[in-house]
């Protein structure tokens, strides 16, 4: 019973964690809350759907079972590229005014939502492909080419190639997968491959395999991001800029590159979260909105100084949601006095559990206003 509850809590928490991880890293570095984070998750979820349909084509049919694994990487790239584009076009201009960024990213999220409603997914895929090629093709050339004065022509022509590739692949996909050729605002469903259906029995309790898979995805993402931040050179630069932007800039770290990279990684993680979300339920234009507020709670509760804060906060919220929302306190302590048990019953729905958790967080903030693991410093303003 207790194990069951713990597992459910950890499952809820791990979706929150993988979704909030990207948000927290970007917030820590740039002080920017990305309201389009939920929509980047939605893009990840739709990417899973598209990947699934493409793997049903005769050519890729033998590898169908592997599509979930492939889509994790594809979703990371798709959301990451959209995030990089967002940083380069909008967020960079608003540097230093976080509230304005908040509003601008909300605008982006509206556009993305309407985009998946009114553009056929096949052409959307084509557009994303041309974005990927256009952004990355110039960087494959050697630095000698880059320094020559004709590099702008190289850039220009690679965008033309990218556009062509996008149109071609869009047409190809829409002609071969009929489901993707029409725009629709309806929700779509991702079906898990056969090896992910069913349950596993551990210690006499049955665990659904999809949830285990999500926990594994989360675990791998957290380990990967920790290793990246702590072991790699760019990770070190990101940490340096997070701690003190001016000083890092003075020491020769290109803060601009760090910003793009971090935003790309944060958005990519949203895409991975989208894969996890698509395994839990149907995918629609509003799917991100259901998770985004949970992510905000995690960021507020966890603080921005440390990844540990994000981890503790998301599992804490996950386990509390399960404990309160499913009314498990009653089953743990059956002969609770009546007024108390009435209160527990009153909050024993998912939506009322949110109400309770918000109240708890506001109370918690009275004691630790900057979250579990605040960033240490002596600045007046932070």
């Amino acid at each position, binding site marked *: 019973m207790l194990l069951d509850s713990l597992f459910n809590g950890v499952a809820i928490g791990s979706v929150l964690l993988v979704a909030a991880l990207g948000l927290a890293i970007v*917030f820590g570095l740039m*002080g*920017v*809350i990305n309201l389009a984070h939920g929509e980047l998750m939605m893009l990840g979820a739709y990417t899973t759907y598209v990947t699934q349909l493409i793997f049903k084509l005769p050519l890729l049919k033998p590898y169908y079972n592997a599509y979930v694994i492939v889509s994790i990487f594809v979703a990371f790239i798709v959301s990451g590229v959209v995030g990089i584009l967002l940083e380069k076009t*909008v967020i960079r*201009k*608003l540097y*230093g*005014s*976080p*509230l*304005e*960024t*908040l*509003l*601008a990213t*909300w*605008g*982006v*999220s*509206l*556009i993305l*939502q*309407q985009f998946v*409603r*009114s553009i056929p997914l096949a052409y959307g895929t084509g557009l994303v492909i041309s974005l990927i090629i256009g952004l990355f093709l110039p960087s494959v050339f050697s630095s000698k080419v880059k320094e020559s004065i004709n590099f702008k022509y190289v850039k220009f022509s690679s965008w033309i190639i990218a556009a062509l590739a996008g149109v071609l692949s869009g047409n190809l996909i829409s002609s071969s997968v009929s489901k993707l050729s029409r725009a629709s605002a309806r929700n779509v469903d991702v079906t898990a491959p056969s090896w992910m259906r069913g349950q596993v029995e551990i210690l006499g309790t049955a665990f659904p395999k999809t949830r285990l898979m999500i926990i594994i995805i989360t675990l791998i993402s957290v380990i990967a991001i920790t290793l990246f931040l702590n072991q790699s050179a760019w990770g070190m630069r990101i940490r340096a800029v997070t701690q003190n*932007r*001016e000083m890092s800039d003075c020491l020769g770290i290109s803060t601009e590159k760090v910003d793009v990279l971090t935003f790309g990684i944060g958005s990519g993680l949203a895409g991975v979260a989208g894969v996890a979300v698509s395994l839990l339920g149907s995918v629609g234009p509003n799917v991100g*909105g259901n998770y985004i*507020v949970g992510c*905000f*709670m995690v*960021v*507020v509760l966890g603080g921005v100084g440390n990844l540990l804060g994000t981890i503790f906060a998301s599992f804490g919220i996950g386990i509390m949601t399960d404990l309160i929302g499913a009314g498990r306190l009653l089953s743990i302590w059956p002969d609770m006095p009546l007024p108390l048990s009435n209160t527990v019953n009153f909050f024993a*729905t998912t*939506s*009322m559990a*949110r*109400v309770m958790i*918000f*109240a708890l*967080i*506001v109370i918690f*903030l*009275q004691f630790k*206003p900057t979250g579990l693991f605040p960033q240490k410093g002596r*600045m*007046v*303003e*932070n």
Partner: protein
Amino acid sequence: MEFKNLKLTKKTTFVIWVLIIAFIVAAPSILPVFRLNLLGRYLSLAIVALGVDLIWGFTGLLSLGQGIFFALGGYCAAMYLQITSSSEFPNNIPEFFGLYGVDNLPFFWEPFRSPIFSLFAIWVIPALVAGTLGFLVFRNRIKGVYFSILTQAALLVFFNFFNGQQKLINGTNGLKTDVTQLFGQMVGSESIQRMFFWFTALLVIAAWFFSKWVVKGRFGNILIGIRDDEPRVRFTGYNPVLFKTIIFSIAGGLAGISGALYTVQSGIVSPQFMTVPFSIEMVIWVAVGGRGTLLGAILGAVLINYAKSLVSEALPASWMFIQGGLFILVVTALPEGVLGWAQGEGPRNLLQRLGLKRKIETYPSLEIKNETEGLKNE
């Protein structure tokens, strides 16, 4: 934050006001009933926009949760109307209670039998809720983006709560006011709606004068001080918590009044008033109109909503694109809003671009950036 305090010249303000009043006076005779009703609703939204302008434009607090107070005001008004017109229903309580097997009016609705209490409740309750929430948050020096996402989370929490409580407030269905009675007439009838239009127009003007009075003088100066450099205000000996709490609850009260007026004119209040997009839209009305200018908030609310209804009637799918674009455009290109743009160098620059006006030969005032500016923003 690099943001000049905008001051409209007396002449411009006067001209705009003459236009507004002329329009309001002429509206009932030139607009069809449907459009007049829409205009009335949008005017009531202008009141909540004034509140948003007070807290965001003047004090620098971006609240994404004004929908809470808006809906609270709406619920207070709707419940009063439902209770007063419930005499023909069993137990003398509104009809929907019967659906969920509730026989007695829940105790906290009891005072709403009195019209005077209800009139006060419409703005006092939202103001109290805003004050409490604000105090708990400001006390800990939570501000900036943290404050914004906390208000958004609060909004969602209230939405969940109101959505789930059928037995207390009819849950997701909301409370209808159309078929209730006021002064012996149906609230949805044309004559009452016409009266509400006038009433709303008067209250918008009253709210404008009130907001003007609030931001004038020393109180207003402190608000602007908090917006531009809060630590400095604190070090000078003022307590920003107090001022922020007061202005936040004023904005909450204005939102409540606005919600009540909007409810009686649209015929229903429901948890939909507390959805996240609606509350963020309120911010964009102010941003487009020109934050820091009270008139801008009013104009922004009315014009954007009118544009929204016109565009969504013609091309339903495109409004989201337009609105999204508007958000991005207004923060990147027009940070001071339309009125701010018109007041500043904007029109002259435009005319110069078009070649209609000669360039000034002397140097324009140089914008020397303070060297500490960059540090302060961190």
